[in-house]
């Protein structure tokens, strides 16, 4: 703080920006059952493992529900159900009929949007504004989009016949639980595959709510099976001999294990793994909007975003100005109860993740970087972390190299285009990047040189079902979304 004053900067006061009267979304608008079983063959069934585990609200540490732990026998049962559904009904069904089911699921997500948003926020800790305005509508859109493709595959792959693969084993992360389920299930169904899906152990509830919808939508039993559990359950799915395709979104470490496990088998795979995206601000950029993009890039969903803009590169001539604006903007972020409609930054997803983030914050300080956190007060209960930025970061610092998966930003300055291209690509990851400049030609130059699957120009964290998403290098392979998202689920003959 004293440092800022020495640099002759004026900081605006924002204490009043954080004191809106609470506007709490009502919990009672959503129904969460005390116990959830496994959704296999169109029914909720008790686990053969007889084991259950609790899922909690990370903002209050209260137990929300008890969820079945699928053991090996349960996975076998789910895969068998999916296989039978594939052979007996789903692969034979006319594509236009498949589309109707997918369309129906999309409509029902829209109808129950409020309930989904509440459960997503309670279970995962993200602000209700985000689950309401982003997660749920984007998930519904994904189903709508792929419903449209189901009977048009011959146009997606001209002069080829697109055949389904069979049973897809899908394992999804805890950062966008419903949306990731949509990303996985929608293209699989559209192309005629059946599904065994496992949500993350900290956030299983919206996937189970989706299972209820799927039941209500009268999807033929076994076409979608949703089983809950932890890493072992995931491993059992990956190693199951009767699975034809693995779709995984999660950490790079687990992605490598999966890759090893399926080596030498016939299983197709898409892996969407970690990231350490560079967000690059040139001196001719619209700075106020760029600052908004930095905020959105790193503090959206508490930074639990694989494509988060976690490395910021600012051109030297506007560096001081951008940092000053960024700090003032951070002071207006409202951190707290995710169920409050005014909350901008909610709860960290789990105690473990909070510990990881705190370890990296400590590391950043040890590495000699200069930390700034917004002055907000944190709730006493629950897992919370202040929005944090580090300046004076070196490319060799671990906070600039490793994925933190939290609201922590590592900032460096640069002078020339070549320098920033080199630095931005100097990472094991390659999922996304952001470029901010008023000059169109610079955008095209940079986008062609970024080794990243998605490059945003003058915006950040924009998603659309029509746009493919996926990584380079250790950020994985395969694309989800758009026409490209069909390809991993078909064999072309």
């Amino acid at each position: 703080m004293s440092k800022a004053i020495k640099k002759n900067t004026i900081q605006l006061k924002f204490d009043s920006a954080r004191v809106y009267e609470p506007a709490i979304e009502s919990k009672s608008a959503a129904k969460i059952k005390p116990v959830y079983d496994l959704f296999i063959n169109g029914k909720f069934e008790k686990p053969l493992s007889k084991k259950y585990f609790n899922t909690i609200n990370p903002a209050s540490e209260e137990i929300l529900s008890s969820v079945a732990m699928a053991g090996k026998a349960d996975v076998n049962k789910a895969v068998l159900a999916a296989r039978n559904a594939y052979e007996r009904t789903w692969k034979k069904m006319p594509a236009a009929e498949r589309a109707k089911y997918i369309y129906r699921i999309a409509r029902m997500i829209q109808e129950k949007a409020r309930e989904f948003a509440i459960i997503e926020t309670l279970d995962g800790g993200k602000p209700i504004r985000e689950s309401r305005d982003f997660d749920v509508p984007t998930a519904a859109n994904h189903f709508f989009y792929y419903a449209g493709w189901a009977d048009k595959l011959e146009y997606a792959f001209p002069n080829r016949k697109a055949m389904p693969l069979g049973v897809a084993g899908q394992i999804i992360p805890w950062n966008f639980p419903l949306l990731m389920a949509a990303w996985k299930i929608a293209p699989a169904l559209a192309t005629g595959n059946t599904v065994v899906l496992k949500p993350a152990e900290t956030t299983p509830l919206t996937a189970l709510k989706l299972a209820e919808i799927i039941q209500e939508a009268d999807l033929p039993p076994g076409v979608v099976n949703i089983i809950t559990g932890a890493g072992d359950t995931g491993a059992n799915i990956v190693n199951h001999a009767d699975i034809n395709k693995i779709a995984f979104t999660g950490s790079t470490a687990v992605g490598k294990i999966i890759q090893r496990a399926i080596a030498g088998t016939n299983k197709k795979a898409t892996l969407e793994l970690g990231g350490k995206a560079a967000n690059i601000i040139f001196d001719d950029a619209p700075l106020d909007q760029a600052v908004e993009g930095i905020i959105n890039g790193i503090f959206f969903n508490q930074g639990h975003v694989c494509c988060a803009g976690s490395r910021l590169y600012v051109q030297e001539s506007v560096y001081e100005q951008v940092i000053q604006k960024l700090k003032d903007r951070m002071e207006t972020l409202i951190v707290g109860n995710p169920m409050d409609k005014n909350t901008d930054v909610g709860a960290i997803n789990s105690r473990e993740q909070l510990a990881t983030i705190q370890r990296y914050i400590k590391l950043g300080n040890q590495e000699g970087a200069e930390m700034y956190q917004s002055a907000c007060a944190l709730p006493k209960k629950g897992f919370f972390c202040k929005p944090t930025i580090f300046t004076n970061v070196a490319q060799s610092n671990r906070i600039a190299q490793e994925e933190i998966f939290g609201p922590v930003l590592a900032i460096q300055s640069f002078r020339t285009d070549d320098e920033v291209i080199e630095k931005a690509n100097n990472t094991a990851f390659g999922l996304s990047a952001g470029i901010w400049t008023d000059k169109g030609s610079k955008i095209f130059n940079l986008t062609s040189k970024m080794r990243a699957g998605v490059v945003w120009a003058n915006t950040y964290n924009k998603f659309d079902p029509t746009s493919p998403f996926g990584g380079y290098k250790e950020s994985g392979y395969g694309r989800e979304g758009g026409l490209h998202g069909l390809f991993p689920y078909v064999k072309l003959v």
Partner: protein
Amino acid sequence: MAEKINKEKDCSTFGLRKINMIADKKNIAIPDFRHTAPVDQVGVEERASRFTKRSIKKETKLNGLLLALNMIDLTTLEGKDSDGKVKQLCYKAMHLHDAYPGLPTVAAICVYPSMVKVAKAALGDSGIKVAAVATAFPSGQSSRAVKLSDTRFALANGADEIDMVISRGKFLQGEYNYVFDEIAAIKDACGDTRLKVILETGELGTYDKVRKASEIAMYAGADFIKTSTGKISPAATMPVTLVMLEAIRDFYYATGKRIAMKPAGGISKSKLALYYLVMLNEVLGEAWMNNHWFRFGASSLANDILMQLEKERTGVYQSPNYFSID
């Protein structure tokens, strides 16, 4: 906590020193107005719509409504304005709705120069200011001599604030120096009287130009920058106001001098007014959250706020017939 108090103390003394320094005008470096900060249309509109996602309830809503009421420049700018109408408006400004005890007054009333005398007399010592639109309002299509004499006429009649219009034609021609000099000349004529500079953003066409015009006005001596005359559509919008607030912030960063803001035209509902206050609060902070630094130029907003206040007080909406139309 201790660190925080220090921070605030340091900031304010620092700010003060800057302002003193600014009083010596030679110290402000005038930038090259051909190269002002670019604005991204998509980004600014997205950001502006984010403010409308705030949920304003209970105490915050009540305080916001009262504050908004207190920030209104109650306006009548018609060829058919009469002394009687202006007097009525002045009475309304002082007694917004006597059925509701303890209401604030509006900030000012805004009239043509010919009505300033009547308004001044009607408002007496109420503390409500009289703002006069001058400089060949609303088009500004006249000579500098006429504009200066229009301004002096308003001042001589006792105007507390002058609302001038910029020469949009010259601005769009790229004659930034002309626009700058004109504002500076009017400010010179105003002396200590606060000058509002109307950019007429509806005629400028892009956010980049709004930003440029804002900077020209502020560096030329504007005390307020104001979006619109109310005679052109579109008038004030949230994104346009956001661009201007950000220009004010950057000017404050650069010079330590606060500039006031007045969106005018098109803000007739209390909900929208509350979103403007949210935006003001989150872009410029609490120092701007009063009628010295922020105004709404509006004629029908007051009644909508009164209606909302009565609804908050009694729990039911009342018929518009219960609120006077002046």
